[in-house]
């Protein structure tokens, strides 16, 4: 038997499959504005890319590793501001600005994460929130650099990239779509890698992972930095699009929205948070048009989903598919003692 044909080897086309799905998704995203040329749709989708990356990257912490960060928007904002400030110097190209913003954010996250990941559960959540408030107040008070409350003004220049003029709305949209899909693909790869499965061990049972030779703190720090870097891409997409950066990017409500997106979408399917992003954004969009009390309406919808379904929408779909597949596929193996599921709620069944 050739090594490629071993049972484990048969699963390897995973990456090829993911790339194929990503390309299909990208083609769809690029085709959509052509089919419906209204600029509003493009704008809507660019916001979707930005917040989608925020939610997806947060889920690497929440869903994959079991680290509930309340301060993830800090890195979204850091990406936006570093990128905006660099571009405003007029001396860097967009690719260099992007790399520097992502790298800079990763560095900030490395320092903050080194402190945060040593704390457990609610303490971790609170300290991430505290650091976010710190970054928010730096942005608000350092007026000479950041513009303070007013945000980073004066516009963010968009010099041509590889001959592409990003001042053209369609080109800008296309570039954002490509970057978005690449980031999603990178996150998918990480979640399916040996590192990703190590994170699942940590999520399920960190003490046991430690007894199996896993350096839990180092692994948590690794994913913390990677998730921050991915969030920063979301931030800089938004900065590039709105041609500015605002302190609200780093406000706790932005992190809160990202958590809502994850709760609405669900954590069992890799793309669940994107479903949540789409949902929350659509709600936001329409509800703000029709009523002033949009906070009330949003809160109600979230309560209904969280309390009524007790899981995200994508999870509902996932569980339904599982239930349909189960009678055929599984069935306790002959001779096994009664297999009784333990645990319930979030831990029940398989999470991705």
């Amino acid at each position, binding site marked *: 038997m050739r*090594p490629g044909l*071993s*049972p*484990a*080897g048969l*699963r*390897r086309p*995973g*990456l090829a499959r993911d790339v194929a799905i990503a390309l299909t998704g990208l083609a769809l995203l690029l085709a959509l504005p052509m089919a419906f040329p209204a600029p509003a749709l493009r704008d809507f989708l660019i916001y979707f890319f930005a917040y989608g990356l925020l939610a997806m990257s947060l889920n690497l912490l929440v869903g994959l590793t079991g680290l509930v960060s309340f301060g993830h928007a800090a890195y979204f904002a850091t990406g936006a501001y570093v990128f905006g400030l660099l571009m405003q110097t007029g001396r860097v190209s967009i690719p260099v600005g992007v790399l520097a913003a992502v790298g800079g954010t990763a560095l900030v996250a490395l320092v903050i994460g080194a402190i945060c990941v040593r704390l457990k559960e609610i303490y971790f959540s609170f300290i991430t929130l505290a650091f976010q408030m710190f970054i928010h107040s730096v942005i608000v008070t350092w007026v000479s650099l950041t513009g303070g409350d007013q945000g980073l003004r004066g516009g963010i220049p968009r010099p041509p990239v590889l001959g592409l003029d990003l001042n053209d709305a369609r080109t800008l949209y296309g570039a954002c779509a490509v970057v978005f899909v690449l980031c999603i693909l990178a996150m998918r*790869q*990480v979640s*399916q*890698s*040996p*590192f*990703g*499965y*190590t994170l*699942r*061990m940590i*999520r*399920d*049972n960190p*003490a*046991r*992972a*430690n*007894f*199996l*030779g*896993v*350096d839990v703190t*180092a*692994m948590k720090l*690794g994913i913390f930095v990677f998730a921050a870097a991915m969030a920063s891409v979301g931030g800089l997409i938004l900065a590039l699009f709105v041609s500015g950066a605002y302190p609200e990017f780093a406000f706790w409500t932005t992190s809160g929205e990202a958590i809502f997106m994850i709760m609405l979408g669900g954590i069992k399917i890799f793309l669940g948070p994107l479903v949540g992003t789409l949902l929350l954004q659509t709600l936001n969009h329409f509800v703000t048009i029709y009523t002033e009390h949009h906070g009330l309406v949003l809160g109600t919808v979230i309560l209904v989903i969280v309390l009524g379904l007790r899981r995200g929408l994508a999870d509902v779909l996932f569980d339904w598919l599982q239930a349909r597949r189960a009678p055929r596929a*599984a069935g306790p*193996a002959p*001779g*096994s*003692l*009664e*297999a*009784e*599921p*333990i*645990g319930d709620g979030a*831990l*029940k*069944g*398989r*999470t991705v």
Partner: protein
Amino acid sequence: MLRVEHLSKSFGGVRATRDVSIDFPAGSLTAIIGPNGAGKTTFFNLISGHVRPDEGRVLFDGTDIVGLSSLEVVRRGMARAFQVASLFPSLTVREALTAAVVSHQRGSRRVFSRFPVAAAGRRADEIMDLLGLAPKADVLSANLSHGDQKLLDIGLALAMDPKVLLLDEPTAGMGPEERWRMIGKVHRLWEVTGMTMLFIEHDMDIVFKIAQTIHVLKYGAVLAQGSPDEIRRNQDVIDAYLGTDHRLSETVGEA
């Protein structure tokens, strides 16, 4: 292989381990017995780096490992399974074992390859075959029967390719028949791998049948140690632990 010297540990007023000194030669199979609360699990916690002893030394392969973290202890080759199976509920048997093997092979940081890595997957398959878990390979750990959960817990420890394996009550919570099946597997494991193995067990019949050496703990101290025959005849043990009504003659017949 493993030697502890004058090990002591107190929790507040409770002296869980008192001046314990035991030598575990390479390749030996040793039982630790004692009534509930005797300090058996604490003893494992002390040697596996989970709890730091107040006093004493733990010599593993000749070096003192007191003060090392449980992570460093595992990496030196001492693994353990737990009294209450400690698993990864959302991973299947195969995934959990493969992930453990990956960790043992220092592959946990790899992000560019896909899980499962072929080499680690093969080792996981071997472990499943060894323990008879192969038919359950794709079952979620949370959905395994109690006995299979205990087996998987041992399997995870085996993924570390340990030189010393600590098993805390591998038969806990099992009926008589299942106990013997389980201990049969443990015994075969020891014969096949030649590891140095320590196990905690409450069932005297099992202990007398398979252990080479037995150490009896009571109130954290070693009450007696010796071969099954010596322990069986030890008056202190009979008085203090076995009770006079234990029908020793039967177990002699079985052994």
